[in-house]
């Protein structure tokens, strides 16, 4: 178990596309533990993707319940090889990212999503998520394809902000607060 160092942009490794996880891989359980420990070590962090820790595998962890101001229903999710099955609606809210520590941004994403993934026990799960939970999953899934929130903003003036406070987990709570990584 270890808190892994998090890559910070402009580290080009954040732009790599991650490879599918081999479910037989014996290091997987340890990797999941490390990711959880890394997420839990950052106050306000509600999700992290393996490639942010320089492990270029399709694995994300999300736990919106870490922020008491956000509505959620799934608690801790460990999603291996997640695939987006469907999405609907649109909603814009403020996101932060451990890999872009000086910035936050208004990002438009789907309101409701359905995602297929393998869970920690190796079973296939279908997750129907909405609101901030959907946003957190989509944000982390973007990392698996080397996409950062700066790829999804349309104006620096109205969408991108210098971060004034760091990961307190309560900033802009009316808009849903800070997203995970």
């Amino acid at each position, binding site marked *: 178990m270890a808190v892994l160092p998090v890559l910070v942009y402009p580290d080009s490794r954040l732009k790599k596309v991650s490879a599918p996880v081999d479910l037989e891989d014996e290091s997987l359980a340890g990797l999941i533990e490390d990711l959880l420990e890394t997420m839990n070590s950052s106050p306000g962090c509600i999700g992290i993707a393996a490639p942010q820790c320089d492990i270029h595998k399709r694995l994300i962890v999300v736990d919106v319940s870490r922020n008491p101001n956000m509505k959620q229903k799934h608690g801790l999710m460990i999603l291996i090889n997640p695939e987006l099955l469907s999405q609907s609606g649109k909603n814009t809210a403020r996101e932060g990212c451990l890999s872009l520590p*000086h*910035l936050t941004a208004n990002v438009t994403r789907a309101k409701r999503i359905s995602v297929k993934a393998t869970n920690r026990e190796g079973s296939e799960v279908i997750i129907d998520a909405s609101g901030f939970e959907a946003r957190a999953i989509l944000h982390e899934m973007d990392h698996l394809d080397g996409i950062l929130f*700066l790829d999804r903003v349309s104006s620096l003036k109205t969408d991108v902000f*210098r971060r004034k406070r760091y990961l307190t987990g309560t900033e802009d709570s009316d808009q849903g607060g800070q997203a995970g990584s």
Partner: protein
Amino acid sequence: MAVNVVLTGVGHDRVGIVAELSKILYELGCNLLDSSMTLLRSEFAVILMAQIPDGKSIDDLKERLAAAEERLGMSVFVRELSEEELDEEDEDAEAFIVSVYGADRPGIVAGITAELARLGVNLTDVETRKTPGDRPIFMMVLEVTLPPGLSGDNLKSELQTVAAELQVDLSVNSVEVADL
């Protein structure tokens, strides 16, 4: 006939610049057309179009602005606009957002915009920002319109080549308009 003018100015930011500038225009009987005003760090910039009423001249406006220049803390430039210059840009052209970001270094804007100029792409909005810290990130978001014959995919692949040379990351997204 009424005279149309464009007015530009930059000055150190403080409370009341817009109020004082617009008061001068209002008292002369000018009608404001379009304007864009924004703050960059400590500097406030104005670009504004206005119509001067019959019986008043561009010199009347310049005179009043000159009298207020010191108080405004802003050097203001005024130029007359022809009818053609008042026309809107072609609104039918397809608009795209080009987002560029990377480790800060000189040449990112020059490199990307040189390629856009070569492709005949028109820039309609440009914003850049540099983050603080030891390893600053430079970001640029452009709103562009494409010339006939150039697709969004073409634009993306041409720009990706330049972005790779400049060691920056780049994305191209169409501006989605929901017709309701």
